Each structure stands twice: as structure tokens, then as C-alpha cells.
């Protein structure tokens, strides 16, 4: 009896053991956290902290920032778990750990959920539960609202989903002050308004990829011309919004200059994208807008960081 049950059960157990055997290296698990996105999360959250006057202990601030980073990484991991099927057919994402077969989907799910729960609880214990609740909402919004719902159902996916990527400064401000103020809301609005021109510029270049994966990005649904027009509209809104910190008094002289010059740069490139619609020049200028949009956002936030973090703040008014 025992031999018979062994012979029936053993092959199944063995195949499960083989199927469940992780092929992933530490670097593969790290890649699941989307390190580049995580850097952006840390960077924008850090700026959210430094523009908010508080007397929180530096170690508490550091651990809060670390937990916001881990929460951001966890949502990236859960996004990769959910999107493994479409990642496999897009050249940009086919080498990610799950489609490459290095990490099992179940492993990624467990990893992402563990990090999500852990980061929210630790942030709540270390700083406050408002910040923890906002971090939990950010993860929920990115994974459930954006990845599971919007991404495959509407061309407005990255517009609404962009809120998740814009929330870190608000979470960070809540972590060090215990409340949410206008300055972090303005930083949220800048990232939120920056997201459509940034991603649609990439989508214009990679529309074939998105088409193959069946993702309704704006160029595939509304067409490249409509996308170019919408990029221009969002950039026209973004450029003055980028200067709002100056008006509100937390962007100094250096920030005023950078945001003015950068805003004009964004507008000039968006106009070029709108005008050039055919062939290689159209693709090249869309690529340039994508690249410049990263530099623009980086410079805005880096300037605020330098002004507030290193004592270089010189008010423009008064």
C-alpha cells in the first residue's frame, strides 16, 4: 500500500519540486522592484521631505524614505507579476525576470505582497498611519487601478494611473510632518501633468510594441496625430505648473530660472512633435521629447533639493 501510494504520489511531488525551484538570482529579484522607477520614487519623495519644514529625527526620516522606496518597488514587482503575459511580447520588457523564466510568477507575487505589507506596517510604526495609509493607497492604485484595470482597458491609462507615480512627495511629506500641505500637492500635480507627454512620446516611438501586446495606448487608439495634439496640450499646462513652486514661495531664484528654461524646452519639443509627423524625423523628435522630459523633471526636483537641502534658497518675491 505504501509502495503503491509512493509510486502514485512521488512523480507529482517531484514535478512540483522542479516546477517550484527558483531559477532567480538576487539581481533578478532586485530587477523585479524596477530600480529606475524606485530611484524616481526615492528622489521625488526626498524632495517632498526637504520642502516640508519639520523637526523629525533624521533616522526616522531615513527609514520612512526607505519604506516609501520599498513600497514603490513592491508595486513595481506586483505590476510585473500581473503584466508578465504582455511583457513577454514587448521588446522593451521581454527580458524582465518573469517572462525570461528566471522567476516564477508565484514567487514574484509572494515577494511583492510581503514587501507591500511590510513597508506599509513599518512606515506606520516608524512615522504615522496617515503616511502608511497613503503608501498603501499608492500601491493599491498602481497595482489594482492602473495595472489590473486601466492599462488594458482605456487609452487614458497612463493619465489616471500617473497619479500613483506622482504620490511619493505627498506620502513623504505626511511621513515627516503628519499632514499634507499645498507644496507636496503641487509636486504631485507637476509629476501628474508630466506623465502624459513623457509616456506618449515613448508610445509614439514604440507604438508597434504596444499594438502587439494589445495595450490601448493613445497612438494605437486615437492615432498618432491626436496623440501629438494631446502631448502639446498637456505640455502647455505643464510648463506654467512647473513654475507654481515659485509663486507659492518654496521655489527659489535658481528654481525659477530652471523651470522657465526647462518649460520652454518642453514646449519647443512638444511643438516639434506636433509639427513633424512623418518618417524618421518624427520618431527622432518624439525620442528627444521623451529624453528631455526625464531631464526636465529631474532638474526641477534636483533644484528644489539643492535649494532646500543645502541652504541655497533665495526667494524670488520679497
Amino acid at each position, binding site marked *: 500500500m505504501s509502495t503503491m501510494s509512493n509510486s502514485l504520489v*512521488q512523480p507529482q*511531488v*517531484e514535478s512540483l*519540486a*522542479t516546477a517550484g*525551484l*527558483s*531559477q*532567480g*538570482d*538576487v539581481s533578478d*529579484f532586485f530587477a523585479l522592484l524596477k530600480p529606475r522607477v524606485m530611484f524616481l520614487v526615492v528622489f521625488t519623495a526626498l524632495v517632498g521631505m526637504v520642502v516640508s519644514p519639520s523637526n523629525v*529625527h533624521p*533616522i*526616522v526620516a531615513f*527609514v520612512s524614505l*526607505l519604506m516609501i522606496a520599498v513600497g514603490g518597488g513592491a508595486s513595481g514587482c506586483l505590476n510585473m507579476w500581473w503584466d508578465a503575459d504582455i511583457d513577454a511580447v514587448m521588446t522593451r520588457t521581454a527580458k524582465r525576470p518573469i517572462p525570461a523564466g528566471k522567476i516564477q510568477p508565484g514567487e514574484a507575487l509572494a515577494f511583492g505582497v510581503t514587501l507591500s505589507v511590510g513597508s506599509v506596517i*513599518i512606515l506606520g510604526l*516608524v512615522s504615522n498611519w496617515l503616511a502608511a495609509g497613503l503608501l498603501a493607497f499608492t500601491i493599491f492604485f498602481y497595482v489594482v487601478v492602473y495595472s489590473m484595470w486601466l492599462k488594458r482597458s482605456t487609452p487614458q491609462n497612463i493619465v489616471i494611473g500617473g497619479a500613483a507615480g506622482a504620490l511619493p512627495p505627498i506620502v513623504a511629506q505626511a511621513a515627516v510632518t503628519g499632514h499634507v500641505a499645498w507644496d507636496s500637492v503641487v509636486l504631485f500635480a507637476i509629476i501628474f501633468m508630466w506623465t502624459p507627454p513623457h509616456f506618449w512620446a515613448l508610445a509614439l516611438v514604440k507604438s508597434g510594441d504596444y499594438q502587439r501586446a494589445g495595450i490601448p495606448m493613445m497612438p494605437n487608439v486615437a492615432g498618432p496625430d491626436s496623440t501629438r495634439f494631446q502631448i502639446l496640450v498637456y505640455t502647455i499646462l505643464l510648463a506654467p505648473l512647473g513654475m507654481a513652486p515659485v509663486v507659492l514661495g518654496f521655489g527659489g531664484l535658481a528654481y525659477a530660472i530652471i523651470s522657465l528654461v526647462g518649460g520652454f524646452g518642453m514646449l519647443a519639443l512638444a511643438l516639434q512633435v506636433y509639427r513633424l509627423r512623418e518618417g524618421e524625423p518624427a520618431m527622432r523628435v518624439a525620442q528627444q521629447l521623451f529624453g528631455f522630459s526625464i531631464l526636465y523633471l529631474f532638474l526641477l526636483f534636483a533644484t528644489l533639493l539643492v535649494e532646500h537641502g543645502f541652504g541655497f534658497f533665495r526667494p524670488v518675491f520679497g
Partner: protein
Amino acid sequence: MADRKSHQSLTPEEQKRRRSRSLALAFTLGVLVLLFYVVTIAKLGPGVLQRPM
């Protein structure tokens, strides 16, 4: 039994990867312990260690 068999079937490369995962997990746990200690001291002050038994 099944566990032993799956161990036997690990290639040197798989063993190396598993070892690196285990080390990373141990490192993470160590960092967490340190983090909780440091945060406790930062939030409650060094006086937290001088309590009447």
C-alpha cells in the same frame, strides 16, 4: 524523500543562486533587526534602556 531528491538534482549553478538568495535574506533580516533597534533609540531616546526591572 522528495526534498532530498530535489536537492540531489540541483546543478552547481542552481546551488550558487540558492546560496546567494539565502545570504540576501539573512542580510535583509539583519538590517531589519538593526533598523528596529536604531529607530527605537531614535524615537524613545537612550533612556529606554534604563528602566527599572
